């Protein structure tokens, strides 16, 4: 078996193992460990303020995962217990009380806050909590006791996985990846269809914008950036002017809709033109190296360019669950897309929606590029004839 095959099988096995471990972890979350005190030492948990139960839950679950089997933690001004715990009638627990993976059955008094993780706080008759009560992954059940402070309960996230890893972890799970993948495929297909439509009905415009973006990339980006800054104030001024003119107030809804459509068309058209430019560059480079690149046409350019952009987002979708790296991948994909969209937006504006090829690097009008001119002008490998100063006519034929 080749190394590629072995790597694939190994990856498959790893994925399988990870999935099995995750599900098993979820099942373990439902079991109650034997009641015991959690030895002091290790990280310190602060229970004085219970305003942010999600953050506390995240911290406690992380500590539980890290200290699997040998859990050690300290509660500042309090105690920590693992498994079910009861405070008997007449008993007093000084300070805060943390109960992990078990119920806190209170018949006596707790002089502080009570927090449970994956367990209920049961307030029996005669029980008093002088502080507040928080049940994470459980409920506060009142059977005649008193909580002098606040009561909070954060129910278990639906399903074992959520309960075992917290809501944020569940949010980054496989279901979310599939949702993102579906959204990604939908966006990619929509852009492809829009691009093909543009090639079909407005190919010259698309190519002019594409050439502008390729030939004047920096200029296009700066133009796009400025336009992004100015578009809202400009629209605001137009609307204000219409409102002030009294009669023009009737036009405000139409102007708003027209402006939104125009903006959308400019941004999407520019973005597709940049994808076209990227694809064209790649296909031409492959052809220049003598590699098979299929037929060189705008459809292929678009698909190639969009595929390149999509690869960045696909990377994020598949690895978004990896801490830090997932965020970095998202930021990278977002930044790349924004840069391209801004460049395309600017190129679209500079070329007046593909009507003016002023910045497209086309020194000669297409009708001037005759067979005679092409025969006389070196195309590959040799420096082409420079444009005559002052934008003169077609260079004279070399003899």
């Amino acid at each position, binding site marked *: 078996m080749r190394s590629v095959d072995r790597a694939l099988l190994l990856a498959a096995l790893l994925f399988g193992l990870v999935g099995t471990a995750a599900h098993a972890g979820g099942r373990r979350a439902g079991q109650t460990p034997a009641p015991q005190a959690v030895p002091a030492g290790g990280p310190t948990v602060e229970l004085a303020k219970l305003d942010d139960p999600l953050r506390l839950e995240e911290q406690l679950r992380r500590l539980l995962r890290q200290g699997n089997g040998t859990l050690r933690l300290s509660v500042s001004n309090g105690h920590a217990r693992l498994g079910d715990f009861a405070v008997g009638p007449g008993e007093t627990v000084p300070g805060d009380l943390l109960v992990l993976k078990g119920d806190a059955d209170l018949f006596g008094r707790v002089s502080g806050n009570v927090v449970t993780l994956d367990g209920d706080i049961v307030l029996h008759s005669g029980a008093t909590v002088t502080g507040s009560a928080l049940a994470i992954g459980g409920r506060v059940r009142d059977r005649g006791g008193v909580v002098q402070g606040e009561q909070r309960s954060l129910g*278990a996230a639906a399903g074992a996985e959520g309960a075992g890893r917290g809501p944020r972890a569940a949010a980054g799970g496989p279901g979310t990846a*599939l949702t993102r993948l*579906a959204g990604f495929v939908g966006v990619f297909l929509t852009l492809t269809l829009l691009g093909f439509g543009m090639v079909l009905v407005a190919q010259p415009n698309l190519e002019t914008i594409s050439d502008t973006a390729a030939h004047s990339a920096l200029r296009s980006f700066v133009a796009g950036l400025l336009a992004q800054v100015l578009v809202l104030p400009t629209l605001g001024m137009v609307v204000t002017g219409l409102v002030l003119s009294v009669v023009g107030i009737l036009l405000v809804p139409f102007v708003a809709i027209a402006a939104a459509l125009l903006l959308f068309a400019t941004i999407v058209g520019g973005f597709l033109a940049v994808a076209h430019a990227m694809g064209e560059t790649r296909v031409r480079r492959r052809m220049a190296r003598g590699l098979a690149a299929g037929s060189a046409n705008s459809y292929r350019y678009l698909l190639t360019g969009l595929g390149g952009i999509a690869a960045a987002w696909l990377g994020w979708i598949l690895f978004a669950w990896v801490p830090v790296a997932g965020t970095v991948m998202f930021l990278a994909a977002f930044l790349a897309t924004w840069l391209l969209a801004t460049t395309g937006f600017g190129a679209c504006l500079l070329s007046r929606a593909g009507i003016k090829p002023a910045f497209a690097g086309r020194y000669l009008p297409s009708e001037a590029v005759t067979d005679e001119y092409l025969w006389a002008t070196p195309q590959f490998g040799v420096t082409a004839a420079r444009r005559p100063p002052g934008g003169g006519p077609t260079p004279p034929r070399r003899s």
Partner: protein
Amino acid sequence: MRRTRSGACALGALTLLSALSPSPAAAQTLRDFEYSRPLRGERALRARVEFAAGTLILRPGPAGRLYQLALEYDAERFRPIGGYDAAAGEVRLGVEGIGGGGIRVDRRSALPQTALVELAPAVDLALDVAIGAAEGSLELGGLRLAELDLKNGASRTTVSFSGPNPGSCAAASVSSGAGEVTVTGLGNSGCRQWRFDGGVGAVNIDLGGAWPADGRIALSMALGGVTLRAPRGLGLRVTMNGFLADFDAEGFSRSGKTYTSAGYEKAPRRVEVEVNSAMGGVTVEWR
């Protein structure tokens, strides 16, 4: 060799798909959150309720509690809000977005969030409510309402005053974007001044209830319509300021921009309504 490679590829693809497929656990992420505080001699409370999406119900609670929130929220996209500042006597309740969750591609994914907020009827209450794209039902009858500020985005919200306000309310304001706001039993609110700022949505105001004093309502509407349902016997004077604003003046006598209902001067309770509207319409229905 070729068969081995294709088999490995198929196995890899299957495993990747199974890893990506939604497990029952991750398919649903509605989560419960409950938050309450007992009443311990507090005389006043400022409650800020923020609710972005779903169904919000707000009503008077049991006597022994200062406030209570029972929430079911989409843990993938929102986080619960629950915090009390004892020094300021202010509580924040509701949900706020966390900006995650990826791209929604189907309606099934829009989980039905619900929030039930109960507030103590015994304390002077300053209530700020901000509702996004939600259905809101606010029963404020019986609460000692001192102030009300309701911001309604694209929601359908009903504010009811089924009973009179035992306290004293200085002012109330309602702003609505593209949503619909219905206020019933406005006379029970006890608020001397009401202000409605409407965008393009509809505002329905029922002027019934036990008016403790004469009232004043300011309506600023852009394109939306206002319907005033007034009990016969209530004196109503409407001043229309606006460009292309439409007023159904049946049963009113007109003097310039002011429309006065029949028997206004002799009415036991009188309400002045000032309308500033660009293109909205105002309709009065007597009942």
